[in-house]
């Protein structure tokens, strides 16, 4: 199972090259995608981001399996350490979704509290036959009354 000393030394050298090259690839994708390398050339986020995430996952896999020797440990150890991290898949999906919802609500609140939106709503109300008493000019002063109708 374990590698001989000479084989292990080779893995270390290989690891250094792999991690270095993958890091350079990631940075190149970031710089190329954001238009720093070729003027006027950009990559779409949906190409850049998955590529950089996959390369990082590969680096993480290499560090855990070769440098931290997980490849040479018993399967039971690998399972008991690695399987719990799968919970993070749920956490990432749930919390990014949540953050996105905060953004939507914040924008909704900004929209309904803007002056233009209030006027529009009041004008609509004025067109109703029994709501003709409220004038748009007075709306600012009667804000609280109007919103409670």
């Amino acid at each position, binding site marked *: 199972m374990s590698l001989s000393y000479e084989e292990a030394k080779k893995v270390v050298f290989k690891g250094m090259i792999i991690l270095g090259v993958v890091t350079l690839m990631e940075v190149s994708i*970031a710089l190329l995608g954001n238009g720093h390398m070729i003027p006027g050339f950009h990559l779409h986020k949906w190409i850049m981001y998955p590529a950089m995430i996959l390369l990082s996952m590969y680096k993480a896999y290499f560090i855990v399996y070769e440098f931290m020797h997980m490849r040479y440990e018993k399967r039971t150890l690998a399972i008991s350490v690695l399987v719990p991290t799968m919970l993070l898949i749920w956490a990432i999906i749930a919390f990014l979704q949540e953050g996105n919802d905060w953004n939507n609500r914040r924008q909704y609140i900004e929209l309904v509290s803007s002056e233009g939106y209030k006027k529009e709503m009041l004008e609509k109300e004025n067109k109703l036959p029994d709501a003709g008493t409220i004038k748009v000019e007075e709306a600012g002063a009667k804000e609280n009354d109007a919103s409670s109708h």
Partner: protein
Amino acid sequence: MGTDTYTQDSHTAEETGKQLWEGGKSPFGTSYGKLMMWYFLLSDAFTFAGFLIAYGALRFSVPTWPLPDVVFSTAPFGLEHKPLIFVTIMTFVLILSSVTMVRAVQEGHKENRRGVVKWMILTIVGGLSFLSCQAWEWTNLIKNEHMSLTTDPFGTHVYDGVYLNDDGTDAKKEDGTIDAFTAGHTYLIHKHDGEWHKRKFRITEGDLKGQIAQESFGPKAFGALFFFITGFHGFHVFSGVCFLTIIMLNAAGGLYNKRKNGYEMVEKIGLYWHFVDLVWVFVFLVFYLL
């Protein structure tokens, strides 16, 4: 610790799943100390994941976020507008120190005291270099760019527009072209003599075309997230350097030659040190690349 019998060499025999759990030996085929180091690292991974996921949730909760290739574009020796170069160097430093750590562990398996000490010293040098780089990065952000826990001077444009001079005319760049920008462009608000200088601009597209507006600060949480997450990682590097130093001195004193489990302490601190590198992979991805 000297009574550990489950060193790495003791689980070479093939065992069936049932035999593993019959007692009398570690079903994980490793010593108690190493197993607990793995579980500590697992719990630490959840702590870091919690921080990075909080970063993600807050980033998704605001309309704009400063672009990392603008925020992190300064390097020592007067280098400016060199996006991500300095942080790439920091990453290489950490990778190299991980490599020297693997070599120290391998020499430990051979019970080669001098080899262990040599490679551990190089690892410590790597860790200290990384910390120095981080100290420079923080100093630059705090002193020159005036980022703080509650103020993010890096804002991002929502509309295309043109910068204006104080008298209301279109501003020109140094080369004489009009100083225009597009939506999504990140800018730094400068601070002179304690005063923020927010530049005025005219919007040139969309519903608000023609309106005059002023630069505004970026998302408030950015500074706190940056300083806490990179700071927490830096604190791990710092504690790692302290433990590496202690274990290196023990090894140099010949302590591990006398132990039954040999240089296992070097393996344990090695696991911790690789974990610090592993976390940096994700901090680097989330803060500097995405």
